[in-house]
């Protein structure tokens, strides 16, 4: 069988069934933080049991196996067409095996053909680089948390948010307030300051490729990331919005140039079931190593 196909099915299986180590550490930390005997603590306990069970049974952590988003870093001359065809086949196979739910619906007639392959699914972002390595990252992003993403246009009079970092802070925290209870918290924010409406959301999602305990190389963004997480955790929203100490497990922010007339802040929300993995591939497509 085609080596690339085998590697991609395995990537999908592991992404769907196993939470990355950095996220698991953050979840265990938040379980310790919650007050004993509260329903917030019970929620975190069930989440932790669920993570263990999914891994042991090699089954989806969450039944919403989400939008299937591949990020491929590849050398010049890499055959993108073959990759895309193989990725589609791998998605079909992973769906048959139950690593992915039959999750892709025709927007016009509501039909679900059960394959997860169709216009816009899976999503594949290619990025060329000048070395020989091939790295494939995969994010499975559920619908519940996608629905609470938000894009603000600054200035925002109601929130008294101007076109500066303080204005960004206000709208990001408003998004946390509005998302409560809906996106399966504790959550993780990916934010893009600037860009246009499409790239803003795209870059906000790419932030989910970062590990939770990294630091932002830009000092002012690093500060803002930490401040947002800390402030959000003082609001008492808690796991599932039940009230409690952990509202966010982390915040990741990037900035992109904008037009003088526009100032968007785009916020993607990731649920605790933060499914992200990556592999590097040998030229023939076999799996060399895991990236997270």
């Amino acid at each position, binding site marked *: 069988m085609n080596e690339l196909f085998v590697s991609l099915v395995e990537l999908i299986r592991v992404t769907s069934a196993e939470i990355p180590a950095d996220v698991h550490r953050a979840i265990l930390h938040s379980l310790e933080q919650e007050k004993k005997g509260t329903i917030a603590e019970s929620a975190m306990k069930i989440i932790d049991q669920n993570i263990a*069970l999914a891994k042991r049974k090699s089954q989806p952590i969450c*039944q*919403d*196996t989400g939008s299937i988003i591949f990020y491929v870093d590849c050398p010049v001359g890499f055959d993108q067409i073959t990759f895309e065809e193989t990725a589609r086949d791998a998605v079909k196979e992973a769906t048959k095996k139950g690593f992915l739910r039959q999750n892709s619906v025709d927007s016009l007639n*509501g039909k679900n053909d059960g394959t997860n392959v169709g216009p816009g699914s899976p999503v594949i972002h290619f990025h060329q680089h000048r070395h020989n390595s091939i790295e494939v990252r995969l994010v499975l992003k559920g619908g*519940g948390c996608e629905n609470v993403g938000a894009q603000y246009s600054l200035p925002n009079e109601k929130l008294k948010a101007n076109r500066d970092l303080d204005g960004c802070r206000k709208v990001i925290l408003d998004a946390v307030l509005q998302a*409560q209870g809906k996106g399966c918290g504790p959550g993780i924010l990916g934010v893009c300051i600037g860009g246009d409406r499409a790239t803003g959301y795209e870059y906000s999602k790419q932030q989910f490729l970062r590990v939770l305990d990294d630091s932002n190389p830009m000092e002012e963004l690093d500060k803002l990331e930490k401040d947002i997480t800390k402030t959000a955790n003082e609001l008492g*929203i*808690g796991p599932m919005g039940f009230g409690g100490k952990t509202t966010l497990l982390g915040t990741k922010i990037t900035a992109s140039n904008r037009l003088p007339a526009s100032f968007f802040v785009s916020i993607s929300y990731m649920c605790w*079931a933060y499914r992200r993995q990556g592999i590097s591939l040998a030229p023939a497509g076999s799996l060399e190593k895991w990236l997270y």
Partner: protein
Amino acid sequence: MISLHTPIQESALRTLKVGDAVTISGTIFTGRDAVHKYLHEGGQLPPEVKLQGGVIYHCGPVVMQDATGGYKVTAAGPTTSIREEPYQAAIIKEFGLRGVIGKGGMGEKTLNACKEYGCVYFHAIGGAAQVLAECVKKVRNVYMLEKFGSPEAIWELEVENFPVFVTMDAQGNSLHQSVFNASQAALLDRV
């Protein structure tokens, strides 16, 4: 921990309050966006779907079929309930639902219907697909699979000790409302 068994008696239900941890055993039906919209538009359920006095679960499970045609639920967490807010109150009234299981809570219309007709909103842990699938002991039947596709179909499930939390009770209290108000006030102090 309070244990409930379907059919849930109204008297037992009226004593539940926000913040209670509950386990449910018995029969529940999944129903999500397509089913709610269908019922709202006057669609009829197959007669075998006995929703009367029952519990509906906002869930689109992952279901696998074995070689003999039997079904097994392999992932079964809740989906976001608020999308059913336009329809839920009418369905509680029409079917005398005693419980709605979902996540994220619902709005005022549903809260009022819970109070008026004796229903409780049970919050399951969002994303806990495996823990909850373990509590599904059997798939009793499936309805409208062809029409709606697997995640949207009505699955009749036998569950045992299915863990949920009361976040909207039949006395008019909503945990979602109180947490929202408190967090909004806390945020105002911090921006």
